[in-house]
């Protein structure tokens, strides 16, 4: 999940109500019994469980502590919170040295892919965890993201980021653009952007890279990753990258992107001033816009599925147990994971309070999904995001994905800013990414 809060059911920023909601969830969870946990709970002596987390998962965890400690009064829980990047650097160091290892760590999906390359995380398919039995209870792509090539399950998903298209309905109306114009195809999306720019002066999207980021995720064949296939052969010089680069170039040539970086001050100002009309991103972004990025635009936004029937994930949080953490605490850590990920009440509590979109499928029939979101002008956007979550496919990760992504972005910059030909840019990216494949 990302650090942000959603609009509540009434569309207001969630304040005191959030606490009440979490307390309620905690109370409900206390009455929820974990199969097989009673014998362990009865035998436990005074124990100390350390959990390392980043915002805002740390808030979700802290809110659940009363419920956990009601079930396990002899377990003292310490939550170590660090900023997002610091947390993952600290986890890398802890896994490296096996010192100051928490009993349980939260990992963002991008880092999970990298950590999965090593042997630092416990394989949760093995006894006593036997995590495979829970596979069907989770959104499929999220569970599969935590499964490595050997079939080992290295983490359990708790929240996901279903990709969505957020757009300014008022600007679209002014330009005479319908939602179908935005979503029927990538070409119609760009054409709609031309009309919006002409009628309102607003940019279609923050950066031309955004369109590339989604298009390269479409049409991935089974067993393929984003940048590499199973044999570590680079897949850059392929149709989806060609198309992604061509669409990005078309956006830039028509001055449809604001050319701003995500999370920069220009990016935030663009939303506040209505200078950016759409954003393709995880559904959690609606909460950011509502709470601090552009609260004055409340009611003006709408959500739609990504253009051309694309479905993509953006973000997501997992719980993992370090392999070399204290053995006696692993069962306790596993109990905590089970409570946080398999409890309908815990998952819904975090969803309602902190916009942590649930990974647990059992929550998907809750009426909360159907409630209108005031930030989206009363649209029940969670239904769209639920649909997207069910349709997203897991993409095989490769240890060089992060580097490959940087190379592709760099080559795209050369195409957009320096006039380099797409063919040459993709050929150069292919060569460089292939050269790193087996390192």
């Amino acid at each position: 999940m990302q650090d942000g809060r959603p609009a509540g059911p009434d569309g207001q920023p969630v304040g005191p109500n959030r606490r009440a909601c979490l307390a309620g969830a905690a109370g409900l969870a206390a009455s929820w019994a974990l199969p097989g946990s009673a014998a362990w709970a009865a035998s436990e002596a005074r124990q100390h469980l350390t959990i390392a987390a980043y915002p805002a998962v740390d808030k979700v965890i802290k809110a659940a502590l009363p419920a956990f400690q009601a079930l396990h009064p002899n377990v003292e829980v310490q939550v170590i919170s660090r900023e997002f990047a610091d947390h993952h650097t600290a986890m890398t160091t802890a896994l490296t040295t096996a010192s100051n290892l928490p009993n349980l760590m939260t990992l963002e999906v991008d880092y999970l892919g990298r950590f999965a390359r090593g042997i630092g995380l416990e394989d949760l398919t093995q006894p006593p965890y036997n995590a495979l039995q829970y596979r069907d209870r989770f959104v499929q792509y999220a569970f599969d993201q935590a499964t490595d090539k050997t079939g080992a399950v290295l983490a359990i998903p708790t929240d996901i980021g279903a990709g969505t298209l957020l757009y300014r309905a008022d600007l679209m109306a002014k330009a005479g653009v319908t939602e179908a114009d935005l979503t029927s195809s990538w070409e119609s999306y760009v054409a709609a952007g031309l009309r919006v720019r002409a009628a309102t002066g607003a940019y279609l999207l923050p950066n031309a890279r955004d369109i590339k980021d989604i298009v390269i995720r479409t049409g991935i064949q089974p067993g393929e990753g984003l940048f590499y296939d199973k044999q570590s052969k680079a897949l850059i010089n392929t149709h989806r990258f060609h198309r992604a680069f061509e669409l990005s170039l078309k956006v830039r040539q028509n001055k449809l992107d604001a050319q701003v970086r995500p999370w920069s001050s220009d990016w935030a100002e663009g939303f506040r001033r209505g200078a950016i009309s759409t954003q393709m991103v995880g559904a959690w972004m609606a909460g950011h816009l509502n709470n601090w990025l552009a609260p004055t635009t409340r009611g003006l936004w709408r959500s739609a599925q990504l253009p051309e029937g694309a479905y993509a994930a953006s973000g997501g949080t997992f719980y993992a147990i370090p392999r070399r953490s204290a053995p006696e605490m692993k069962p306790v850590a596993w109990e905590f994971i089970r409570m946080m990920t398999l409890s309908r009440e815990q998952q819904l509590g975090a969803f309602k309070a902190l916009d942590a979109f649930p990974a647990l499928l059992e929550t998907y029939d809750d009426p909360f999904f159907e409630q209108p979101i005031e930030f989206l002008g009363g649209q029940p956007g969670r239904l769209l995001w639920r649909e997207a979550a069910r349709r997203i496919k897991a993409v095989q990760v490769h240890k060089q994905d992060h580097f490959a992504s940087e190379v592709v972005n760099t080559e795209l910059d050369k195409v957009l800013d320096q006039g380099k030909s797409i063919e040459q840019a993709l050929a150069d990216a292919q060569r460089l990414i292939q050269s790193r494949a087996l390192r």
Partner: protein
Amino acid sequence: MSQPLPAVSATTAAAVSPSTKSRRRTRLQLSTRWAPYVLLGPFLVLFVVFGLYPLLFSLYLAFQSWEPTSGLHAMQFVGFDNFAFALQDEWFWKSLSNTGWLALASGVPQHLVAIPVACFIHARIKRFRNLLVGAYFVPYITSTVAIAILFTSLFSTDYGLINSGLRAIWNGEPIDWLNKPGTIKPTIALLVFWRYVGFNVVLYLAALQTIPADLYEAATIDGAKAWQQFRYITLPSLRPAILFGVTLSVIGGLQLFEEPFILTNGKGGSDQAGMTTAFYLFRMAFDFNDFGAASAMSWLLFAVVAVLTWATHKALGRRT
């Protein structure tokens, strides 16, 4: 556990023999043989833990292939593979090129500006000298993060003060300072220049105060003009300070990390135009999980720093 105090009265204390006093004094004194080691001890311990050990570990790591999250035991000896990889990596060479560009563009002006400014302050400013020098020095001691946030706002494309000012005098397209390869480097260089020029002003001002005034008096009597005095007295006298300042600039410029890292949001900027070598090797380790190659690159960077520092000494050092 505390020892019982001896029953010593004023009279018995006075009766303590000189030899006993001497023995007690000896127990408290360090022998001349061990004193240096004891006094140096705290520094040596800190140096070994935080200086020498990381250095040697980095050297060891440069010859290993390692997936860090698997633990220390997961290292595999690969000989010079990491060095060979680094030397063939086009991004490493690009980072070196960026580093050289930034070191020159930010370093040379620092000295070209600091020397005249220091001379001017030395010769003309008397009353508010300390205040002025303090003002020049403030950027050097200000938090890098605060500076980067300030500069990010100043250089904002659509809402920044710089572009607003430019718009008042020139009605062109707003300049995208932080997102275009052609403007990222000058922006970083400007920030580095602004941050360190004050340090060099203070350095040269201190050096100017050591030049005997009678040299200038004699030159004035001989009819030397201000420029001639600067050229033949001030500059040669500043040579040791210039050598020191340039050496620091060479080392600092080649290790440039914080400013480009923060201004480009830790990514290097468009076309990696702001990615210095120190920045790249950090990313190799912590973003791309390749600690072996990162260590090899750090030693290659060390070699470059050593060679250029030696060249600086050859160029600016004392000539006999």
